[in-house]
């Protein structure tokens, strides 16, 4: 009966695919949603490609999944995945429905790269049995959904299948401690000039030793609880990475990756440390799959970090930058603020990373703002910060508490009016920070910023 229900659900879902194509909705998770309604354990009956890699974690899973899929495809693999859809059960089911034949067998693809929302673990891993589970990191995410990283680590340890090989971050030991009985390899990045020893961030989720609750001493700390530590009381320490990136040279775009005592040169196709972590994660997985270093390096040179997270362009006399910074995510905000404030030049920022869709029947839970390092925005090169939306006073208050001068704070109720609050001084870069909740509004506002930038440059669109 179960198998019959599965086939009925699968066929109906497959039939919906051309219908969605005709109506230009092919990017949605509708096939998965439909099939799961008819057969909630749909994935139980699905076939599988030879290799399944699940990529999860708080930040970086989309980048890692996409770069990994690009490289494997370039290497001649037939890669299935949920890139076009969501990373929850409906998106993953849709990927399987699209990839399988009418009987649920997967024959066209030899490898699956599945981006899995960590909170979806209880619904995914009972059926999808990955060969490798990659955890980029675990940080504070949405308070409302993910509670705290220790909770997510417990959830993953509870649901990830026993045999899966873990690819883990040696520098971030909340994720690094997941599934202690599973086989594992670690990646990490060696000391950098910008490292500190004491935490300068508000979020610091590993302040005591996970073994004895003793005091952790950091040999070096990158940000938050990321770094290399040893417990002053019991001697417990960060694991030694199997894939160890060092000599990161952002100016020349190179890094060294050490494996078993031998160094290999890699391109560093980013200017940010968090994307450097994503790249060393990709290297680690590909090495686990047996791809030679030289080949990975060659492919990496030809790839790029997906543009949806960060986009910049010269418009007239102004440099415009769109930077994604997920709302309700204090870690993402802190990393974005640190990154922006460290970039050269003066800048003005428009915040659209607030939960604009919460307006109306609900209200934004602003607790996350108070774990976000607005303090980075105190730096002199941040000339103006524009807040918008119904919570402008809360954002302004948070900025004031961070020590940001009131004369740099501008509050504009309606986001459509916010672009006019930029000063448009040539040489001052213009940043739009947006979240996943405000994609449509942010696109509209960005268009207006562009129009104003051209107008201030004495040009018109065309």
């Amino acid at each position: 009966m179960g198998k019959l229900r599965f086939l009925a659900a699968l066929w109906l879902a497959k039939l919906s695919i051309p219908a969605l194509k005709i109506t230009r909705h092919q990017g949605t998770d509708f096939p998965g949603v439909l099939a799961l309604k008819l057969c909630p354990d749909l994935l139980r009956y699905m076939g599988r490609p030879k290799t399944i890699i699940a990529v999860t974690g708080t930040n970086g899973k989309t980048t890692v999944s996409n770069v990994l899929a690009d490289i494997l495809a370039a290497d001649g693999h037939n890669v299935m995945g949920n890139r076009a859809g969501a990373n929850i059960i409906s998106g993953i089911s849709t990927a399987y429905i699209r990839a399988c034949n009418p009987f649920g067998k997967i024959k066209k693809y030899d490898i699956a790269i599945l981006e899995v929302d960590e909170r979806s673990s209880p619904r995914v891993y009972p059926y999808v049995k990955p060969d490798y589970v990659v955890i980029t990191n675990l940080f504070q995410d949405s308070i409302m959904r993910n509670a705290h990283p220790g909770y997510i680590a417990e959830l993953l340890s509870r649901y990830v299948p026993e045999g899966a090989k873990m690819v883990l971050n040696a520098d971030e030991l909340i994720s690094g401690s997941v599934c202690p009985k599973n086989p594992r390899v670690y990646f990490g990045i060696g000391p950098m000039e910008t490292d500190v020893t004491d935490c300068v961030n508000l979020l610091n989720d590993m302040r005591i030793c996970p073994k004895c609750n003793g005091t952790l001493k950091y040999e070096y700390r990158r940000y938050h609880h990321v770094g290399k530590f040893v417990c002053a009381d019991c001697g417990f320490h960060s694991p030694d990475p199997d894939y160890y990136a060092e000599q990161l040279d952002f100016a020349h775009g190179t890094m060294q990756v050490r494996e078993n005592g031998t160094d290999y040169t890699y391109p560093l196709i980013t200017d940010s440390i968090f994307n450097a972590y994503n790249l060393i994660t990709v290297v680690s997985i590909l090495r686990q799959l047996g791809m030679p270093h030289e080949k990975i390096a060659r492919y990496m040179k030809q790839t790029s970090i997906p543009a949806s997270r960060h986009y910049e362009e010269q418009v007239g006399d102004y440099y415009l930058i769109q930077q994604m910074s997920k709302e309700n995510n204090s870690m993402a905000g802190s990393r974005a603020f640190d990154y922006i404030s460290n970039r050269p030049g003066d800048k003005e920022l428009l915040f659209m990373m607030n939960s604009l869709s919460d307006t109306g029947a609900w209200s934004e839970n602003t607790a996350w703002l108070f774990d976000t390092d607005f303090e980075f925005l105190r730096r002199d090169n941040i000339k103006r910060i524009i807040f918008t939306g119904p919570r402008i006073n809360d954002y302004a208050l948070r900025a004031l508490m961070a020590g940001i001068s009131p004369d740099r704070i501008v509050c504009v109720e309606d986001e459509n009016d916010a672009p006019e609050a930029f000063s448009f001084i040539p040489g001052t870069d213009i940043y739009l920070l947006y979240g996943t909740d405000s994609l449509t509004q942010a696109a509209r506002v960005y268009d207006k910023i562009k129009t104003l930038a051209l107008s201030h440059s004495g040009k018109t669109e065309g």
Partner: protein
Amino acid sequence: MRIEVLFPEICNLFGDLANIRYLKLCLPDAEIIETSLKSRPKFLDTPMDLVYMGSTTERGLELVVEALSPVKDELVQRIDEGQLFLVTGNTMDVFGKTMESDHGLSLTGLGLFDTDAKYYMLKRHNSMFLGKFEDIEIVGFKSLFGMTHGAPQGEGLFLTVRGVGRNENEKEEGFRRNYFFATYLIGPLLVMNPPFTRYLLRRMGAPETLAFSETIEEAYRRRLAEFHSDSFDPIYH
């Protein structure tokens, strides 16, 4: 002014410590004393103007119970003597009888309040809160894996106007015993509630001067209007 923050190395979730950062901005000369798990709480030996403890993890609940159980009798004595406490988020449950979860957590609390907390680890409760403390209107957020049940009436800190109290069936929110205040509300409670913060400052014997008063009052006024509006549903679905 001396403010003791208990166990900030684990009781630091959900922006709760912003309450202390805000008090420090209101009281620049205040001494903030951070007491770690392995230290004896200072308020047991010297009265503090305020003792604060914020939200923690499930493992953190266990560690807080371990840290406070040996000094429970002294803690009760300080409460009875009128020591001012503010406890926010799930650490409130440490002061009840038990804490249990469907993922295997089973803890015996300090038992100051006759109540049992039950957590459902795949079912997180999120809501907004509108309530009263004496004649002061309170706004806040809740984000919890579960709530506590069984407490007798008359020990609440706030009275619920919209949202949920100690649980879905109780109008009373949090616990109050003398000047021991505990609430499930998380995050920047004092930043969001200028009248309550002024009350607390008064109770501490401090000037009632609020930092960034204009902005904080405006944010409070707007949120209050929103939480009172008919279209507003305090429970997140």
